[in-house]
């Protein structure tokens, strides 16, 4: 028989364009291949620094995201009651006029009555600036319930952080330790890196209650008990100190280990770093037996011993305080084993492995470099132990200190920006903490005027808090108040609860973007919806007067808004992935990127950023209006990206600046900038010189360059901090010193219990023990790699991979509780009860249950039919999590990390019991939402792609 003739050399498409993916927060470079104006194929851009040509399952499903039937098509105005999901389609002009009316009334009276919160926003350099121009401090994105503990823990310790501001040295690490990486950030770079490590035969240890994904391929899986990672790290620190397997030279040279801390109990200077009159921290010179600035090149520092200060006060070094604490038996592996479910022998072994990989058989990279003093080194000495950590550390109420402990562990072995260790990504490292401080003090908020700085920032002490006359919060999310002093990403998860209760002020306009607060992004969904729909009895109006929401899709939250701005998909827009915001740099150098419109929208939708720039002009915000009252950026976001200057010469994009387009970092706006990006594959990357690529905290040539390009204010070395002076400042205030003190004894107690200048594990705020035996189990989520963090994951292809989720339970536990694989169980917490289908497994901590995050959808949402498994079997743990902790001493604290305000959704404790036979559906089953008002057909058969084959006959 004649063999079939096959056309093997058909071009992929007729056009290929580069842009940046938005199917999660990785921001990979993609090539979009078009044929006849439709998307034929999306693949990774081989030249892109983030993904180097690979693409994950989400990115590969971009076609289905783009053509989803859940897309919105036109601005919508609510016509039914809030939450009913009844809308009328209106024109953009009407929508903009309506919003301008609501917003200008707020701005001209009390700008604080606008709460502007953007979710998985990748344009915070613009949105935060817009909020500041409007004059409200009430701005944040979703970092408060995502990863602020990781960001703040790092930035307050080493001036960088895991994930966005640092990465493992995949090329040189001998040992990689993953802590709580719940298959999450960042997606492709971790996978690429793991592939490299595996190919080299390097060892991977994963500390995680659940053995999936990355933990599945690790050489060792440590099934730690949730919320106890900090105790485990403390025991590792104990072992390294006990066995003297530390890098003392690194500690003395690079960290604050030698700085002297005043020991003067009960007095206001107790616990302060002792500084000379020039403000330089002082250390003890062991040769000359005297105090010297810690940064004296010729000093010979002694770390141990009580020193006498002028005036007779005593002081000890930071290192001594650390060692005294962690050598104590409470941090021994034996003690910690009972807390963590990790055997003591195993803890000792891991500590030994860490020390051995870092310190024995030192690897040298033959690359001369010069340190901050000007001393040349002929080689770069490796410390090849890398650590990466994420959600499982972050989402606990003790996450900030757990993250800091990881950084202390790194410092002890010198594994910070050395070959083989964690490496900073530019523009990090930055000073600790990085500037600037948050704007939005009460005195700075004025009707009709901007606030004089960005709403989010880094607090150095109580004087930087945003407090009202009574010491209460200024912001609607209570960020930068005593509830969450170092809340660098805000607390989006508290906004609707507080707005519903006008605490501290009523909210007249709640303006949100790309944040599913009406469903899977809220703790306690029922209460959130109650607050969104609460009516003021006296006026009969909604307590949150107006809700504006922008989304590309018919998501659950849309139904709770009064006015909807339909957004474009990521393939229809301009965007800047900016160094001013969340850069895509790697350790080899800074990078940024753009999105460009690949396709024109076929609907009456507008990019959200275009909309707020237009609103900015209509509201007369100074930065968006020319002196003559014209729109400053008539070309919308693209115009802004090119022409906006935050400081002279510094704009959203760092590449191809200057009139000739030849400057990087700083330079005049270049009208051809976007073209230059497009010609380069839609990204810009600067490669550091080989001698600048490590030890960036102390590397003279790196620091000088970073200052020149504007990343850091001076080329001084960045001293890594074991001892946090900002935390000590809060502690001091709680002890009754200084001008700004906690307003009551409960707050003092909370600060004293939770603010420690040397990080320390403490049980989660809801307690580790369960004395009454009510809620013996931990409940957490992992993020399905094929869907996580993707706004458009609910699409025809990805939903076939995860159509509904199960509650995973250790087999032995299930047997004990009488639960059957595939059967249904009630999961109860103090907040609520859900019904979930069980799947038993082996690879899970025996007192932990877990599920895939955010699979469950509400009926009627996301363009799915009402009988879709996502809504009828899929479930959320969110229903079980409270946004508030139980009342204690008359005060109800938020369910957050007391330092940063990070939502503590991994602290959840539950009980399980078999559900009696009944309907095979999840509970609660919220009433269905109506379908997307844009009538889109849901095809019975989807044959996307057939045209690409059959329209062009085989030649």
């Amino acid at each position, binding site marked *: 028989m004649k063999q079939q003739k096959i056309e093997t050399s058909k071009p992929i498409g007729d056009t290929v364009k580069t842009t940046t993916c938005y199917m999660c927060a990785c921001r990979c470079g993609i090539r979009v291949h078009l044929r006849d104006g439709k998307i034929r*194929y999306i693949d990774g851009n081989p030249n892109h620094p983030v993904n180097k040509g690979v693409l994950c399952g989400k990115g590969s499903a971009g076609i289905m995201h783009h053509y989803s039937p859940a897309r919105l098509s036109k601005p919508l105005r609510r016509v039914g009651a809030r939450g009913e999901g009844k809308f009328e389609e209106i024109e953009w002009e009407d929508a903009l006029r309506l919003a301008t009316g609501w917003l200008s009334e707020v701005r001209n009276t009390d700008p604080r009555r606008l709460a502007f919160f953007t979710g998985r926003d990748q344009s915070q350099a613009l949105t935060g600036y817009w909020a500041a121009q409007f004059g409200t401090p009430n701005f944040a994105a979703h970092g408060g319930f995502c990863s602020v503990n990781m960001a703040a823990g790092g930035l307050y310790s080493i001036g960088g952080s895991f994930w966005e501001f640092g990465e493992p040295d995949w090329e040189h690490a001998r040992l990689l330790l993953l802590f709580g990486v719940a298959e999450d950030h960042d997606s492709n770079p971790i996978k690429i890196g793991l592939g490299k490590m*595996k190919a080299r035969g390097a060892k991977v240890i994963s500390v995680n209650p659940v053995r999936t994904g990355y933990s599945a391929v690790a050489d060792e899986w440590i099934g730690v008990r949730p919320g106890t990672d900090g105790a485990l790290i403390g025991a590792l620190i104990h072992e390294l100190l006990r066995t003297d397997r530390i890098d003392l030279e690194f500690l003395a040279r690079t960290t604050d280990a030698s700085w002297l801390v005043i020991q003067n109990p009960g007095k206001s200077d107790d616990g302060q770093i002792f500084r000379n009159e020039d403000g330089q921290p002082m250390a003890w010179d062991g040769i000359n037996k005297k105090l010297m600035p810690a940064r004296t090149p010729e000093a*010979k520092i*002694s770390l141990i011993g009580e020193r006498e200060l002028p005036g007779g006060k005593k002081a000890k070094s930071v290192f001594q305080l650390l060692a005294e604490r962690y*050598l104590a038996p409470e941090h021994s592996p034996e003690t910690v084993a009972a807390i963590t479910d990790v055997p003591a022998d195993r803890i000792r072994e891991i500590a030994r492995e860490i020390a051995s990989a870092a310190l024995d058989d030192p690897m040298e990279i033959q690359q001369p470099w010069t340190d901050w003093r000007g001393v040349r080194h002929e080689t770069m000495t490796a410390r090849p132990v890398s650590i990466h950590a994420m959600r499982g550390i972050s989402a606990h109420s003790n996450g900030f200190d757990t993250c800091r402990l990881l950084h202390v562990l790194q410092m002890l072995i010198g594994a910070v920006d050395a070959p083989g260790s964690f490496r900073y990504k530019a523009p990090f490292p930055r000073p600790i903490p990085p500037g600037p401080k948050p704007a939005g003090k009460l005195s700075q908020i004025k009707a009709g005027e901007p606030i004089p700085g960005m709403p989010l920032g880094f607090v150095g002490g109580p004087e930087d808090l945003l407090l009202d006359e009574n010491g209460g919060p200024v912001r609607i999310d209570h960020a930068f108040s005593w509830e969450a002093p170092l809340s660098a990403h805000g607390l989006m998860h508290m906004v609707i609860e507080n707005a519903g209760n006008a605490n501290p002020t009523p909210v007249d306009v709640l303006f949100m973007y790309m944040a599913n607060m009406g469903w899977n992004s809220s703790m306690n969904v029922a209460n959130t919806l109650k607050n969104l729909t609460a009516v003021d009895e006296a006026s009969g109006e909604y307590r949150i007067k107006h809700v504006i929401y922008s989304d590309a899709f018919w998501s659950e939250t849309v139904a709770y808004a009064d006015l909807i701005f339909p957004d474009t998909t990521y393939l229809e827009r301009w965007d800047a992935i900016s160094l001013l915001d969340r850069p895509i740099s790697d350790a080899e150098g800074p990078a940024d990127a753009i999105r460009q419109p690949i396709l024109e929208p076929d609907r009456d939708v507008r990019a959200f950023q275009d909309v707020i720039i237009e609103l900015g002009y209509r509201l007369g915000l100074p930065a968006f209006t020319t002196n003559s009252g014209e729109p400053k950026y008539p070309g919308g976001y693209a115009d802004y990206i090119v022409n906006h200057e935050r400081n002279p010469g510094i704009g959203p994009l760092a590449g191809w600046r200057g009139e000739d387009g030849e400057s990087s970092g700083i330079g005049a706006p270049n009208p051809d900038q976007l073209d230059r990006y497009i010609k380069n594959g839609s990204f810009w990357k600067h490669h550091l010189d080989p001698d600048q690529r490590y030890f960036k905290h102390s590397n003279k040539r790196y620091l000088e360059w970073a200052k020149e390009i504007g990343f850091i204010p001076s080329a001084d070395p960045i001293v890594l901090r074991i001892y946090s002076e900002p935390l000590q400042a809060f502690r001091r205030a709680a002890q009754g010193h200084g001008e700004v003190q906690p307003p009551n004894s409960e707050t003092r107690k909370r600060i004293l219990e939770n603010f420690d200048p040397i990080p320390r594990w403490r049980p989660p705020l809801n307690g580790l023990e369960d004395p009454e035996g009510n809620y013996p189990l931990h409940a957490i989520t992992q993020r399905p790699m094929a869907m996580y963090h993707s706004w458009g994951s609910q699409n025809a292809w990805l939903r076939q991979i995860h159509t509904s989720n199960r509650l995973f339970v250790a087999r032995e536990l299930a047997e004990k509780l009488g639960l059957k694989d595939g059967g249904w169980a009630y999961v109860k917490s103090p907040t609520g009860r859900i019904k979930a289908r069980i799947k038993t497994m082996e690879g899970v901590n025996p007192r932990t249950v877990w599920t895939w995050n955010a699979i469950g959808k509400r009926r009627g949402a996301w363009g799915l039919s009402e009988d879709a*498994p996502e809504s009828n079997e899929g479930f959320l743990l969110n229903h079980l999590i409270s946004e508030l902790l139980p009342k204690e001493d008359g005060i109800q604290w938020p369910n957050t990390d007391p330092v940063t305000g990070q939502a503590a959704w991994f602290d959840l404790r539950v009980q399980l019991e078999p559900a009696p036979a009944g309907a095979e559906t999840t509970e609660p089953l919220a009433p269905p939402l109506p379908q997307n008002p844009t009538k889109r057909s849901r*095809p019975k058969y989807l044959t*996307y792609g057939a045209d690409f084959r059959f329209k062009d006959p085989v030649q």
Partner: protein
Amino acid sequence: MTSLPNNSATKRLGLVIDLDTCVGCHACAVNCKEWNAGGHMAPLTDIDPYGAEPEGVWFNRVHAYEAGDRKTGRTVHFPRSCLHCAEPQCVTVCPTGASYKRAEDGIVLVDEDKCIGCKLCSWACPYGAREYDSHSGVMKKCTLCIDRIYNEALPENERIPACVATCPTSARHFGDLGDPNSDVSQLVAARGGYDLAEELGYQPTNKYLPPRPKRESQSQPANEEPSSGLLRWVDRLLSS
């Protein structure tokens, strides 16, 4: 019934899949779907794509299994697609010649013009690699991206299957397994690559690399020497 090619060609193109490195992310499955939805066997129909029972044609699916108990066991992610067997019964059972094995490179394909949708081939395939498109009424399957690997419109280094190009952990490799000197054959030799269900005698071309033995920490007796506490550091003098 359909015959296999007479000349037992030495060239045997196929995949090598590293179970030690696969994290189960589904990148290969979705990128395969995306490429092939508009490729040589297009479309890869999805039935009820937004409804209660979404079920589409996928040439590559990833499964997760656990082996062993909690302490000693492991989780394995297992991507599954056509293995392009040397003795493919899916071909020999085909009554029309639709299912065939190419002489020149060993790739097993379906000629849809000849396929009557009888599904004998899917019954014959022990690996479950065949995908019936009930909407089109024909059997479909992995083509090893035949419209990529010989595609002169692509740069040479991109002439590999989509699943291999996109795999973030580099767990997938493509090459000529009939050539003992090829990179993939060498990899198979070095890592003990194996045939799936070898005993069935289908002689799959694709190979799987087994997970490497877990590298436990070297267990040593606990160091019980009493710590000298802070004293040992007293005389250490350090440069700032």
